[in-house]
């Protein structure tokens, strides 16, 4: 293997050693149960409380609005299901979302649909951004909830959360945002954006896997997803994952403290990678808005090739990346995200997502720009589809 370049930070990130250090006491001597009375347990309790304060500080919410969960999926499920059921009792059974949400949202909505909810999925257009007028038109008297992601996980586009929040607040509709890809990467201001509920996951910003949070605006009280003990003020049962919670808070703090300094160079690398690939590979295109996108997100489609074989060849070169091809996921259709922005199936299959972190150096970008084009060419050489494209034959 040549160099190891991890360019799949939208899938998961490296746990930072500083974060692990903060967690270590709770993985060793400090194993007390935070719900226990004795001082050994109260030390863990204090750590959890401090973590909650840290989260509140960096997301601009109140400490008592922070509820720790096992990750982004749980937070999404909890927020959407429970708001939906609560509103259904008031006769409101309409939910608005977008066509390119994460499956944690879309599959939850699908389950709700089976239970009689009506779901409107807003279009996201070629640039992968929701239009506020569409939202305004979609809101009905029986709309229970609007759930729109903060930033998309595949194409990295950032949604007009502030406007959406304002519209929802004005119309008196609850607003949940899946901010799993945004938190720790771009500024997220819970109170300032009129958000009612917000999901996040630690492992997307160099924290540990298996821990996340749902921020719930003070005063909102829906049913629980996980019933049981009195943890999290009786709203999310389960012995607290102290180490995970401490890790989440530390990772968030580090990410937020670093953000202002780290973002411009990250964007520079991202844009050099994008223009380098588009420049050197014919019939390639950038997916998603070039400006309103996450600092680390690159998503490009290459005609005539299929994503999985591209990923395997990149793997040989030590490059970890991801694709929206169906073959990667084991489903039949390519990524619903790429289809939602109007890509034909065949082109969606040939997509590559490179998601950067601060670990990525300028040399890594050079390597990527060096390594990727020949792989594309190699695959095109043996591709009967590329043959058709060159001959301008109709396909699909």
């Amino acid at each position, binding site marked *: 293997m040549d160099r190891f370049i991890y360019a799949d930070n939208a899938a998961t990130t490296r746990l930072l050693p500083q974060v692990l250090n903060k967690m270590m006491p709770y993985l060793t001597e400090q194993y007390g149960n935070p719900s226990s009375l004795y001082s050994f347990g109260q030390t863990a309790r204090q750590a959890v409380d401090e973590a909650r304060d840290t989260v509140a500080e960096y997301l601009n919410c109140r400490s008592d609005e922070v509820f720790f969960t096992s990750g982004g999926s749980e937070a999404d499920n909890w927020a959407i299901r429970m708001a939906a059921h609560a509103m259904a009792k008031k006769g409101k059974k309409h939910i608005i979302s977008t066509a390119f949400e994460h499956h944690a949202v879309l599959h939850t909505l699908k389950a709700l649909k089976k239970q009689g909810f009506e779901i409107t999925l807003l279009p996201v257009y070629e640039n992968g951004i929701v239009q506020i007028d569409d939202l305004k038109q979609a809101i009905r008297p029986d709309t229970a909830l609007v759930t729109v992601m903060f930033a998309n996980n595949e194409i990295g586009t950032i949604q007009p959360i502030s406007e959406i929040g304002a519209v929802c607040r004005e119309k008196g509709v609850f607003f949940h945002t899946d901010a799993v890809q945004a938190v720790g990467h771009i500024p997220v201001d819970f109170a300032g954006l009129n958000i009612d509920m917000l999901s996040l996951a630690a492992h997307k910003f160099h924290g540990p896997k298996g821990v996340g949070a749902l921020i719930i605006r003070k005063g909102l009280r829906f049913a629980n997803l996980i019933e049981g003990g009195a943890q999290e003020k009786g709203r999310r049962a389960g012995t607290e994952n102290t180490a995970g919670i401490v890790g989440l808070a530390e990772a968030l703090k580090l990410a937020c403290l670093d953000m202002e300094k780290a973002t411009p160079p990250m964007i520079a690398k991202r844009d050099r990678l994008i223009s380098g690939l588009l420049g050197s590979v014919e019939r390639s295109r950038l997916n998603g808005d070039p400006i309103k996108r996450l600092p680390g997100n690159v998503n490009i489609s290459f005609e*005539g*090739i*299929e*994503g*999985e*074989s591209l990923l*395997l060849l990149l793997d*040989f070169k030590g490059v970890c990346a991801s694709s929206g*091809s*169906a*073959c990667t996921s*084991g489903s*039949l259709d*390519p990524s619903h995200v790429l289809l939602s922005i109007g890509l*034909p*199936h*065949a082109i969606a*299959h040939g997509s590559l997502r490179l998601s950067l972190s601060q670990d990525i150096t300028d040399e890594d970008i050079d390597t990527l720009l060096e390594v990727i084009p020949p792989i594309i060419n190699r695959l095109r050489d*043996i*591709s*009967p*589809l*590329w*043959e058709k494209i060159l001959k301008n034959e109709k*396909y*699909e």
Partner: protein
Amino acid sequence: MAQFYSDKVMEHFTNPRNVGEIPDADGIGEIGNAKCGDIMKMYIKVKDGLIDDVKFKTYGCGSAIATSSIATEMIMGKTIEEALQLSNKAVVEALDGLPVNKIHCSVLAEQSIKAAIADYYTRQGIDPTPIVGKLADPHQPICEL
């Protein structure tokens, strides 16, 4: 280094055998479509009832490329009858297995060879159907099998 695929699949994916086209092929078969993300195109040369040469081009995932590659090896030099008997199961076995959601690739390989042989018969003025059997519609998504 843990892998998604067997070593055999990886080996054929990395060093595919018999890649390319046969300009004066006696039969060409193409199966799959871009929508599904898989197209296999097989070229055969027939001599004295034997598969004298076979080449392929494939658009698709790792296992699509690997199955095409090993399938060409498995029919090279064989009689047409033997080539027709190549089953997708045999291809899977020869590759030391495929993940469940990749089995359709082996079907593509089997079908594209049959399609090439059918094309060979058609060019000879012989109706291939009684010999080759009913082929999958090349434009139907085999991946949904």
